[in-house]
């Protein structure tokens, strides 16, 4: 497999290999805390912090971690940073901390972070690992904010607590409820699948046209 460039490391996590929308990782937080954009941003920030710090640390210590205990080591590193994120959030953003609740701790079992360590940070330089982590983190943020925006706008008629539609808007409350979380992600995936299908059909058609001409 050819070596990826540094910009590729950074960019691929953002859309093409988006952790939530393409790889289907980190679904628990993606569904649970996206009932408002504020919560989505807070969770994304915490996760971004954890994944970047973890990737940098794992990559710097990769020589010292024996192969047999590597998963336990990764989990230990991730759990440490999650604990730090939890404490810092509770101190500096207590309202957000209360809203996110147990899901901050659940960042530890976000398969996305563990996956990046195993697949990338353990085998690459610190700088590249950081790029990879940042790309993944941004991708995660985009997915979460997309969902959060959809759910908040339709479910409460506001965005970041700013009312958008005026008093006569009847909010579609289901979207800020758990069922809405599932449905929102389902619709987004369907939409993405549809767009991808159209793109492929068009590509096939142009290929056919070229072949027959």
């Amino acid at each position, binding site marked *: 497999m050819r070596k990826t460039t540094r910009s590729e490391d950074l960019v691929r996590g953002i859309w093409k290999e988006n952790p939530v929308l393409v790889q289907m990782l980190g679904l628990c937080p993606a569904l649970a805390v996206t009932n408002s954009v504020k919560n989505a941003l807070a969770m994304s920030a915490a996760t971004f912090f954890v994944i970047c710090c973890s990737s940098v640390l794992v990559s710097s210590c990769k020589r010292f971690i*024996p192969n047999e*205990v590597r998963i336990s080591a990764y989990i230990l590193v991730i759990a440490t940073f999650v604990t*730090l994120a939890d404490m810092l959030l509770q101190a500096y953003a207590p309202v957000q901390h209360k809203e996110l609740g147990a899901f901050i701790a659940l960042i530890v079992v976000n*398969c996305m972070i563990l996956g990046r360590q195993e697949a990338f940070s353990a085998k690459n330089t610190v700088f590249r690992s950081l790029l990879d982590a940042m790309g993944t983190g941004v991708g995660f943020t985009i997915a979460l904010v997309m969902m959060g925006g959809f759910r908040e706008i339709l479910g409460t008629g506001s965005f970041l607590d700013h009312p958008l539609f005026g008093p006569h808007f009847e909010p579609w409350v289901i979207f800020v409820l758990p069922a809405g979380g599932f449905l929102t992600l389902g619709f987004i995936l369907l939409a993405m699948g549809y767009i991808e299908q159209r793109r492929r059909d068009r590509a096939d058609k142009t290929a056919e046209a070229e072949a027959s001409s």
Partner: protein
Amino acid sequence: MSDQDINTNAGNDAATVDTAPQGPEHEGASTFRLVATLAVAGALAGLLIVLVNLHTRPIIEKYQAEQLQKAVYEVLPGVERYDTYYLVDGNLTVALPPNAKEKDYKRLYIGHGSDGKVRGVAISKGESGFQDVILLIFGFDPQTGRMSGMKVLDSKETPGLGDKIYKDKAFVQQFFDGPKLPLVGVKAGAGKGLPNEVDTITGATISSRAVIRIINDAMTEWKPVLDRGIPRGTAGSADEGAQP
């Protein structure tokens, strides 16, 4: 297709957990090195956490104390200062027994006016509402048995419906208008105008009734203690005695 997904996700975990560390059946790096690495990593992790904790703990505790203070003053308007009284062996006292953990004891807050007299008592309680537990704090005047205020501290009720228990200003205001305890919930407009009636919220009957129930339950729970008299002293003393 789902199996493929599982494989991509599990490919990492399965392969690696199989080779995860467990004792003597192990080849490769010596067991000592494995354990040592994890021990060192664990120690460093612990150190880092302790340091950050030292920094953040005071900030967090200060915030929590402030929130509680705000809530108590909100439900006890007219109160200048308050003392926290713990229920120890059936008696109200300001002092906890030595080595006791604060959170193990039920407590209430006795507020004093500028004249030093007891102005109100605030109690916090949580019980299941519609969706999950509702935690609230309410204040009342022990002499008249009338409420002075109520504040929902924590609730996960349905947005748009159950969350009206704190978003519906008219509902919340009722508890500040001095209804007499114990409360009776009535449908809006169907009440007889009795002093202990509180209107429930249409469309959020269960959540609003839960609020009323929580307050009444708290009163039932504390009644035996309160009947014996409210301590009037300032921190340290606990004179029990009849009200003036």
